[in-house]
């Protein structure tokens, strides 16, 4: 059992004109076997939350804490967080020219497990994981994210999720830009991962559409850098019908 505990988290983005506060007191618990959905309008800071948990250098935490099973996440480097069991599926994965997907994945697995995977089983594992996501085997020899379509980038993120088997996965708008078919494939990948490793999932999304394929246990509404409402799956239906207007209006008031 793993537990990610975020307590009264405040964070700012570092810009040339000074720091701008984005997160204004986020408290949240993600446990193994549960799916927390965070829903919010554009600019509410929900992606910032994902980046801050992963340790992006662009943000600075001004107060609060992040704890994973008793370990202080904020004291860790980005790669230490990953090795502790955190994973961020990114909304905009970056290109790494000249580095093949297979080389990248193998390097990553080696770092995460502390030893290089055995070549024979590794090739088989990778092929199976790719087949599950309906990815062409030739994909493994392409350069990381270079020339990938939007859908390919997201499948590549979920491929990593399946192979790396983190304790807690944060999915940052993994659904955005996907057509229905790709959304189903990607969602199945997330569900497979969640079942096989009894993982905790923090699903960040703008739309309720993905929640038809990935069932949340808890839904949070995120506005203006904090969680303003929490409920069960039915909260997503309310948002689907009414939008974020009630919450954004309240935040402005």
């Amino acid at each position, binding site marked *: 059992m793993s537990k990610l505990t975020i307590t009264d988290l405040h964070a700012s983005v570092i810009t040339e004109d000074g720091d701008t506060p984005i997160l204004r007191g986020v408290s949240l618990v993600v446990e193994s076997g549960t799916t927390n959905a965070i829903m919010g309008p554009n600019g509410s800071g929900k992606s910032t939350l994902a980046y801050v948990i992963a340790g992006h250098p662009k943000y600075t935490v001004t107060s609060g804490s992040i704890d994973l099973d008793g370990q202080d996440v904020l004291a860790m480097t980005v790669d230490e967080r990953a090795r502790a069991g955190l994973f961020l599926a990114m909304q905009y994965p970056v290109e790494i*020219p000249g580095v093949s997907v297979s080389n990248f994945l193998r390097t990553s697995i080696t770092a995460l497990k502390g030893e290089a995977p055995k070549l024979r089983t590794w090739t088989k594992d990778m092929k199976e994981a790719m087949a599950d996501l309906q990815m062409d085997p030739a994909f493994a020899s392409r350069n990381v994210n270079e020339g990938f379509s939007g859908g390919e980038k997201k499948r590549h993120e979920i491929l990593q999720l399946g192979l790396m088997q983190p304790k807690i996965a944060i999915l940052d708008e993994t659904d955005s830009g996907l057509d229905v078919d790709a959304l189903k494939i990607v969602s199945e990948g997330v569900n497979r991962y969640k079942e096989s490793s009894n993982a905790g999932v923090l699903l960040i999304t703008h739309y309720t559409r993905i929640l038809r394929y990935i069932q949340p246990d808890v839904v949070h509404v995120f506005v203006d850098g904090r969680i303003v409402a929490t409920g069960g799956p039915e909260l997503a239906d309310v948002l689907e019908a009414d939008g974020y207007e009630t919450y954004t209006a309240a935040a402005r008031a």
Partner: protein
Amino acid sequence: MRAPTVAPATDLAPRVFSRSIEDFDVPVGREEEWRFAPIRELADFFQPAVWGSVGLNGEHDVTVEYVEISDQRLSQTWMPTDRPSAIAREQATHAVLVTIPKESIHSNPIVVNLKNAGESNYLHVEVHAGPFSKSQVVLIHDTSGNVNGSILSLLGDQADLTMLSVIDADAAVMQHLHWFTEVGRDAHFLGLSITLGGGVIRTVPTLTYRAPGGKAQMLGAFLLTGDQFQEHRILVDHTQPHCVSNVIYKGALSGEGAHSVWIGDVLVRREAIGIETYELNRNLLLTDGPRADSVPNLELETGDVISAGHASATGRFDDEQLFYLQSRGIPESVARQLVVRGFFVDVLSKIDDAELSGSLMRRIESKLGIVDHE
């Protein structure tokens, strides 16, 4: 003394071809071709001196000879195009001559280990690839001192020549190297220039075609650290129809005062119809401070070409790449190694010899302090 040849005016091609030193003025730094170079530091390269000639170190293949500069087999037609190369041709006493016989096929690379005879040396190397021959020649430069000279690769009809020139120099070393290539009818040339370090290194690769149908690739990988200077001034002179040229130079710079200059001149003459040419320079700045100048020039005297293009970009080591890799558990040093390897891969992967390309890559990583291979 022969009169210098004066070529018709173009913006890019040299004007004067001569073996006479007096035909070239001492550069002052305002000349287009010298405007980036550290003229004062290169002063010794502009006046003739009594320097030794670069020779051979250790055993060599029978195709490799050390000959008197008066040897009649050396090119009688090649002419220097600037003052340093004229001085080197005039002052050198000996030359290294590699002769690939007609129709001979060499499956193993011919490795030429060059040896300096003193602190400063003149260099003259010629590689004659006979018609229908196929070979690889690897030049390993001795970098224990300054070197001024020229390398000539002359390809006969349908010859296939891969040439690799490796300079791995300390910060005190200065080198001025011309690399002249002439491609015969339907011949294939692949030239790889690897320059790791050196205080002041200036290379002037020039490539031209003797007959139609030639294909040439000129690839370069260069690395600067500290306050090193490197200039790679390339000229591809398309003088013949239906030829292909492809230039890719990649540079990585690290350190406050590192300064690289890449000039990619491509001249397509009126008669060079149906050619294809592309040139690319990419520079990766690994720290704050280094400066990379990159100037591609394409001069077309005919519009009747299949393709002609160029690209140039200089970018910083990307924090987002680092974050992405680290977020997958990869430690920072390994992440940097992946990115630098990826950057150079399209040049270094062209080196057939996996051991050599691997050792060059490890050398780059050591020099950058990414991974300690020493």
